[in-house]
């Protein structure tokens, strides 16, 4: 037996089977029974570990659900994790190891868009499917090999800003931007354009860096521009720091956040400072209304003792997406046949959003829900009377 297969984490109680150990005749229709391995590049340590862990938890839950519901009959999906700590070099090494392991039929990765970009040529050259669970850059998917289950936040940002602008009718807006993050730069620019189109003048843009720890200077700068509303375009730590600093210095008007504020851990960290800050959310445990969503929330809470967030949902959908592809295959799946099957999917069967489509390899949901945290830690729809 190949030695490195012993590196499987004990989080996933997994038995090692190679493909096609059921020597019985492959049925003329339906997937051959067996355990199909999916290589998962985890990011459970490193700078974005809390998000990384959410993705991994969601995926594990989905693998269990697929098996429990017998969605693939007697077949099931088994996850093979390799930790990358969000480091590009380690992700590449992990991917190469997955590619070399003949029993792995699909791979999944990446919270950071540059790392996903680096892996693209490798998977295309090696002809193995890759489903991205977290990277938010647009244009990453490349059917038939590369798909993305990330709900892109850009259009949601604009919808949120428009809703706030319509309700409050501000005259000027200031933006706090993580200047070293191209994705947020793009999102801010798009929102800024829309806002200016609606007559909300830009008072100024205050730049911070994602690795900053002190935001009093930036907060002072933003407040000095005397805007009616401040919009935040930064990653989790920076957004939390900026919002807290603004409130600490006595800024009482509306601050518009973004999707990074949605996990429950952010409410725990920020407490009263984040109450009332509107942001868009595609999935939230407190606003789950479809039966699949409710079931997802309750089993996630039972298994992991915390509520799922949008990252858990995206991780969950990755495994269901692969399962949906597998379901349409007859006999034993190969990497090529799985890729072809995945490229044919347009509508996701089992999802927790109340509707999810795939277009050109990119998952999408319709509509935008604008919410804010309430004082008792629940997400409620945002209303202007704050």
């Amino acid at each position, binding site marked *: 037996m*190949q030695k490195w297969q012993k590196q499987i984490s004990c989080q996933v109680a997994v038995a090692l089977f190679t493909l096609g150990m059921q020597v019985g005749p492959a049925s003329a229709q339906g997937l051959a029974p067996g355990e199909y391995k999916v290589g998962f590049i985890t990011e459970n340590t490193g700078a974005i570990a809390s998000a990384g862990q959410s993705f991994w938890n969601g995926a594990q839950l989905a693998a269990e659900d697929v098996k429990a519901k017998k969605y693939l009959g007697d077949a099931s999906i088994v996850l093979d994790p390799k930790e990358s700590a969000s480091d*590009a070099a380690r992700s590449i090494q992990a991917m190469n190891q997955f590619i070399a392991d003949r029993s792995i039929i699909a791979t999944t990765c990446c919270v950071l868009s540059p*790392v996903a970009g*680096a892996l693209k040529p490798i998977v295309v050259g090696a002809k193995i499917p890759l489903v991205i669970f977290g990277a938010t850059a647009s244009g990453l998917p490349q059917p038939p090999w590369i798909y993305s289950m990330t709900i892109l936040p850009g259009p949601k940002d604009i919808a949120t800003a428009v809703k706030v602008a319509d309700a409050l009718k501000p005259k000027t807006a200031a933006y706090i931007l993580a200047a070293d993050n*191209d994705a947020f730069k793009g999102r801010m620019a798009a929102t800024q354009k829309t806002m200016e189109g609606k007559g909300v003048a830009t008072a100024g843009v205050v730049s911070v860096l994602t690795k900053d720890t002190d935001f009093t200077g930036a907060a002072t700068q933003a407040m000095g521009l005397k805007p009616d509303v401040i919009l935040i375009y930064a990653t989790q730590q920076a957004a939390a720091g900026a919002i807290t600093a603004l409130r600490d210095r006595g800024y009482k008007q509306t601050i518009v956040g973004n999707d990074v504020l949605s996990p429950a851990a952010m409410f725990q960290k920020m407490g009263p400072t984040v109450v009332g800050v509107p942001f868009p959310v595609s999935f939230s445990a407190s606003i789950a209304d479809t039966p699949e969503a409710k079931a997802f929330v309750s089993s996630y809470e039972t298994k992991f003792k915390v509520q799922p967030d949008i990252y858990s949902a995206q991780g969950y959908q990755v495994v269901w997406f692969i399962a949906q592809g597998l379901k349409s295959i007859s006999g034993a799946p190969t990497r090529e046949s799985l890729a072809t099957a995945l490229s044919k999917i347009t509508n996701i069967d089992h999802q927790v959003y109340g509707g999810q489509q795939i277009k050109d390899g990119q998952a999408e949901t319709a509509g935008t829900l604008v919410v804010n945290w309430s004082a008792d830690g629940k997400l409620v729809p945002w209303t202007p009377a704050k």
Partner: protein
Amino acid sequence: MQPLVDFWNAYRSTLTFALVNSFFALSTYAVLSVGILSFATVTFAAFGGFLGVRLVLQTGIDPLLALPAAAAAGALLSYVIALIFLRLESHWMALASLALILITRVLIINVPGTGGVNGLSVPVTLPFFMFALVLLVAIIIFWRLSASWYGIAARAVREDAAVASTLGIAPRRIQTVAFVISGAVGGLGGMLLALALQYLSPDTYFVNIAFTMIAAVVLGGSYHWAGAIIGAAVFTALPVIAQAIIPEFQDVANGVVLLLIMIFLPRGLIDPRAIRLHFAARKAVAQAPRDATSPAAGGAP
């Protein structure tokens, strides 16, 4: 046969990174061998790497041809740095080289053409045997150097620069040469890292390489060039092994290994002095019975 091929494919990238890290370790060793602690290897690597990649992207030449360009760029930068830094005392020099790395990162983010924070995708790469071949060339060069006049002069300067100058060796000149060698090898390593990763970001060339390479050189043995290569191999393999055994504490493992080496094996694994003493002792012991009647006493000094 198949398992072997699969094993090879799985670990080929780890081996490639080990080879690339050898270049950084050799670059650090080059200056350490004349008694200077400098982290500037990282800056040379960044310069060589980004220059080489831009050259390939802009002109589309074969990456193999870009390698000498990267080495030359590194050598040029190191010559300039040497002129400025060698005036400093040793501990200030180490700190200055650290500050240099920090500034390099700020420059990479702000200078156009480097892809800024998002990094640069490198569409070309080299086959594995090319990495090994280039390393072989570097090894031959280091081997010849250490056996040459330069090697002896370097050892003298490291032992005691003042004494070396009384012997007619110009320490400043030897140290400058060491810097240029370090720059060339560092720049080469930087380009090779870009080709291995196929992706560059501001964090690619940062303090973690600097500290890991110092650790690698010290572990392998800072008194011989082979030590650098062995140390680099160990420190590349260590995270992979640690991940297999104790995934939660894999980074801690790096630190613990380094700490243990510093306390118990400060001259590293490959220590020419220890080897020479060992062989001298064996020879003396073998001679002792024969020279039992001779007045000169045998035994190690």
